[in-house]
C-alpha cells in the first residue's frame, strides 16, 4: 500500500546513565491519504516517541533516531536537512499535544501563536496572518473569535485551549495531523466535543489523522485503522472493526478485555497482570511473554515478527495468528 506516510523499521533510542534504551524498535506502518489511524498501547510503550520521531522533535541528546525511514509524500523525512524539515513541520504535518494547559506559551496572545505558523509557512504579513487566525478560531468554534484572538492562554479553559491548539495545527492545511492524546487532560464532556470537532474538520479538510490514545472507545468511534504497540514494537495492526471484533494478539485481547462494558456482570474489571517492562530489562524472545496468559516455552526462544494474518492484518504472535484469523472470519456476518 502506498500511503501518505509510511514508516519503515523506525528505531529510536535514548542514551541514559544506565545505558541505551531502545524506545521504538523497528516500527513500521502506513497511513493512507485522508485516513484515520489510532496508535494505542499502555504508557511507556513508545507511542509518543514514534510520533516525535516522525516530526523529528526528539530531544538529542539523549534521544537518537538510529534507523529506518519515514516516507512522507515520496520523501524520507529522516534524510531531510533541518531547514527542509522545518518546512514540513506545522505545514505538511502538524501536531497537537496532551496538555493544553502547558502547550501554549503563557506570555504570547493566542492570535500571535496561531498567526506565527502562517507567517512562517505562508509568508503572510502581520495583519493578514492575524485575520487568518481569527478565521481559524471561528473554524474551531470558539465564540467571539475577533475578541478572543487577543487573549492570553491563561484566560481560556482547558477545552478552549485545546481548540486553540487545533486551530494552530490546522492553520496551514496540513495533510497529516498527529494528535498525541489530545483529550486525556480534559474532562469527559469536553473530550467528546474536541473529538467531534477533530472528526468534522478531518472530513472538511481531507487530512489524515494519527491519533495516539489509550482510550479504546475513542478508537472504535473515530478511527479506521488501529496500531497496537507494546514495548517499542507494533504487535498488531488492522482495520478497527476487524481488530475489535476479533483481537488476535494476546496483548490486544487483554487491552479490550480490560474495558468496562455496559451491562457487565458487575465482576472486577479484567486487567493485564504486571506492567510494561523497563526497556533495558525486556524478556528474551517475545517481549510480552511475562504477562501473557498463553505463553509457552517456545515464546522465550524466538522474537516474533509481524506477519500477515488475515485480510490486511498483521500481528506478532505465531500462536494466535491462525486462531485470530479464524475468529475474524467467523465474526463477520
Amino acid at each position: 500500500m502506498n500511503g501518505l506516510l509510511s514508516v519503515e523499521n523506525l528505531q529510536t533510542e535514548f542514551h541514559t546513565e544506565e545505558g541505551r534504551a531502545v524506545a521504538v524498535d523497528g516500527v513500521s506502518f502506513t497511513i493512507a491519504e485522508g485516513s484515520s489511524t489510532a496508535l494505542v498501547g499502555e504508557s511507556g510503550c513508545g507511542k509518543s516517541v514514534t510520533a516525535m520521531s516522525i516530526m523529528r522533535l526528539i530531544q538529542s541528546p539523549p534521544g537518537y533516531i538510529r534507523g529506518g525511514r519515514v516516507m512522507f509524500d515520496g520523501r524520507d523525512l529522516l534524510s531531510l536537512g533541518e531547514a527542509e524539515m522545518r518546512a514540513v513541520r506545522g505545514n505538511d504535518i502538524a501536531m497537537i499535544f496532551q496538555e493544553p494547559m502547558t502547550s501554549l506559551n503563557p506570555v504570547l496572545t493566542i492570535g500571535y501563536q496561531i498567526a506565527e505558523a502562517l507567517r512562517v509557512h505562508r509568508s503572510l504579513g502581520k495583519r493578514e496572518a492575524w485575520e487568518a487566525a481569527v478565521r481559524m478560531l471561528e473554524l474551531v468554534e470558539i465564540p467571539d473569535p475577533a475578541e478572543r484572538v487577543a487573549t492570553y492562554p491563561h484566560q481560556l479553559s482547558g477545552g478552549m485551549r485545546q481548540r486553540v491548539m487545533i486551530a494552530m495545527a490546522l492553520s496551514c492545511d496540513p495533510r497529516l495531523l498527529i494528535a498525541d492524546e489530545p483529550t486525556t487532560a480534559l474532562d469527559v464532556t469536553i473530550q467528546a466535543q474536541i473529538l467531534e470537532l477533530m472528526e468534522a474538520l478531518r472530513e472538511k479538510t481531507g487530512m489524515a489523522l494519527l491519533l495516539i490514545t489509550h482510550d479504546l472507545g475513542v478508537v472504535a468511534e473515530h478511527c479506521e485503522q488501529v496500531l497496537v504497540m507494546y514495548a517499542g514494537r507494533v504487535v498488531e495492526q488492522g482495520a478497527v472493526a476487524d481488530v475489535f471484533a476479533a483481537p488476535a494478539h494476546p496483548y490486544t485481547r487483554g487491552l479490550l478485555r480490560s474495558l468496562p462494558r455496559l451491562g457487565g456482570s458487575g465482576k472486577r474489571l479484567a486487567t493485564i497482570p504486571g506492567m510494561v517492562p523497563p526497556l533495558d530489562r525486556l524478556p528474551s524472545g517475545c517481549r510480552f511473554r511475562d504477562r501473557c496468559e498463553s505463553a509457552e516455552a517456545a515464546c522465550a526462544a524466538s522474537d516474533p515478527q509481524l506477519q500477515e494474518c488475515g485480510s490486511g492484518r498483521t500481528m506478532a504472535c505465531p500462536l494466535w495468528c491462525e486462531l485470530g484469523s479464524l475468529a475474524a472470519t467467523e465474526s463477520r456476518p
Partner: protein
Amino acid sequence: MLAYLLRRVAGFVPLLLGITLISFLVIHMAPGSPVELMTDMNPEAGPEIRQRLEERYGLDQPYHVQYWMWLKRIATGDFGRSLSSDARPVIDKIKEALPVTLLLNVLSLFLVISLAIPIGIYSATHPYTPADRATTVFVFLGFAMPTFWLALLCMLLFGVVLGWLPISGLKSLDYETLSWSGKLADRAAHLLMPVTISAITSLAGLSRYMRSSMLEVVRQDYITTARAKGLSERAVIYGHAARNALLPVITILGLSIPGLIGGSVIFETIFAIPGMGRLFYTSVLMRDYPTVMGILVIGAVLTLLGNLLADVMYTVADPRLRKR
C-alpha cells in the same frame, strides 16, 4: 493601574517612617558624637564650648525630641546642613555625589545585562559543551576575584604599563579646556575601567540565573509546540523561550536598583571617584548625622520606588499578572 500605584505609594509612608526611625536611633546611639570629634583634639575647647555646640545642633535634647525635629524639617524637604567643617547643605553634597555613582552603576548594570543575558541563553542552549564550561569558569573567576585586586592589576596594566587609560578620577586636569567631544572622550576613558571591572565582578550571578531559568523554560511543552510549528531554532529560543526565562530575572534587576545608588567604598576609594559610597563612609566616621540621615532617606525612597518599578515591569512582561 493608577489606583494600584497610588495605593502602593501610600503604603510607603509607614515603611519610610519605620526605616528612618530605626536608622536615626542606630546612628545616634553609636558611640561618639560629632561634638566630641570636633573638640577632642582641640586644647582650647572646654566643656562650655561643647555644651554650646550641643545646644546649637540640638544634640542635648532626648532622642525622641531630636527625631521629631528632624522629621518636621524633612517633611518640608529640608535635609539640614552637614556637621562637617564645610557645613554645606546636605542636599548639595548628595546632589554632587549621586550622579557620579548613578552614572557608574547604571552603565555597569547595562553592561552586565547585555553580557549576562546572552551568555546565559548561550550556556543554556549549549549545556555542558566546552563553551558553556568556559563561560562558567570565566564568570566565576570574575565573581571570586576581589574587586580591589582586579582593579589594581588593571590599573597597573592599562594605566601604568600600557598607558592607555587614566587610572583614577573622573576627568583630566585639562577637562574644562576640551571641546564637547573631547570632554565626552575624556569622560569615557575615565569610566571605562571602573565600569568594566564592576561589571565583570557581578556578571556571574545574573548569567547563571539566566542560564538556569532558560534551562527550565526550554523543557516546557510550549517550546515543543513552537518547534512543531516549524519555527526556526532562533525564533523558538528568542521569541518563545527567552521572554519566559526573563520573567524571574526582572525580580533580580528590581532588587539591584537600590545597589545603583549605594556605591562601593572600596571601589570609589581605589579609583578616586567622589561618589555616594565615599560620602556615606566619611559621614559615618564624622558622625555627620544630617548627611547620614539624608543619604539613608534618599536611599530608602529609591529602594521602595525600585521595588515598585520591578512590580510594574512584571505586570508588563507577564500577562498572567494583569488584572482582567
